[in-house]
């Protein structure tokens, strides 16, 4: 049990995917202008990441490894993730129009999110079991959402702040992201 908790804490804070591993930076920059959209993106990513890390573990363990086809990992995982995202979109569209409206365009956007593929590949690299993979994926997604929401809240305040003209727009965003990343480095002492 402690082991699982350790994996969770470590992926959320210490080895945060966005700020420490620098994966999934494109949604971090582009979807963080508004708090609501950031939450929607976080929700969608959490769902897809957890599911995809489990599914890619299953595909790897019961299909690729027994047949000695480990070299197909990347392409097989991309296939799994793409199908999963598409399937989720279809089901959500039918069962919950409200959730579909919130998630909307973010779901397809996740297909090309490098953090999703990164989690699947890192799971194999670190030789995680089934439950460990699920927790690793879930932790990574929670970390991603946490950072995204924090960053969006900051950017909402930055939008009305009196920023010097040369720093307005992208520069101050990147500086903020850099400072946040440095702040998260502090967690490595945990």
């Amino acid at each position, binding site marked *: 049990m402690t082991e699982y908790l350790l994996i969770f804490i470590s992926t959320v804070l210490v080895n945060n995917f966005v700020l420490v591993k620098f994966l999934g930076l494109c949604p971090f920059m582009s979807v963080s202008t508004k708090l609501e959209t950031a939450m929607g993106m976080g929700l969608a990513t959490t769902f897809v990441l957890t599911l995809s890390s489990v599914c890619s573990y299953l595909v790897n363990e019961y299909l690729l490894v027994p047949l000695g086809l480990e070299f197909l990992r990347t392409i097989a995982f991309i296939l799994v993730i793409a199908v999963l995202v598409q399937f989720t979109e*279809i089901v959500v*569209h039918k069962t919950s129009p409200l959730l579909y409206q919130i998630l909307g365009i973010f779901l397809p956007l996740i297909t090309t999110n490098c953090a999703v593929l990164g989690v699947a590949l890192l799971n194999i690299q670190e030789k995680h079991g089934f439950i460990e993979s699920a927790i690793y994926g879930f932790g990574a997604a929670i970390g991603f959402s946490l950072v995204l929401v924090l960053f969006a809240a900051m950017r909402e305040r930055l939008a009305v702040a009196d920023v010097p003209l040369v720093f307005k727009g992208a520069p101050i965003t990147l500086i903020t992201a850099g400072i946040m990343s440095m702040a998260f480095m502090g967690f490595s002492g945990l």
Partner: protein
Amino acid sequence: MIVAIAVLGGLALIFGLLLGYAGVRFKVEGDPVVDQIDALLPQQQCGKCGYPGCRPYAEGIVKGEADINQCSPGGKVGMLALAALLDREPKPLSSEHGVEQAQMLAEIDELNCIGCTLCIQACPVDAILGAPKHMHTVIAQECTGCELCVAPCPVDCIKMVPIPEAVKTWKWPYPGVQSTPEYSPCDN
């Protein structure tokens, strides 16, 4: 090599079948015609057609309750576009649903405004800004010119002014349809 191709192909096939099944099983029954009609309507939400907004009117047309000539802000061009879309006979705009006129903009005479918020409640697109006992004003970019705020005003301080046609305010006439030679949108 052959195993690799077979595995990847098999995986793709299974996933394809899964998605295909999901596509049929979880099909969303929308009414694409309503969306198409809604896209042709001017989205003023003025209610002159007798429906609370543009989308209900579009649904009314599809159900056969409403005729295509009830939208006066859309004008003749809009009616012709609807007739073309639904393959119906064009008919003149019905006079009981208002007359076609140029795009207008509500303007509040701010000296006379008493801050009663009645016009705010009437505005279908939330284009009026104000608070009780404070002066109200119209957000010009949001105003659709539906005239719904004029009637509730107790001091008659709202008037509709036509938008002067300048380079910055000119846009393609509603709805965005290709003009045909005999019904060019420019000649009305």
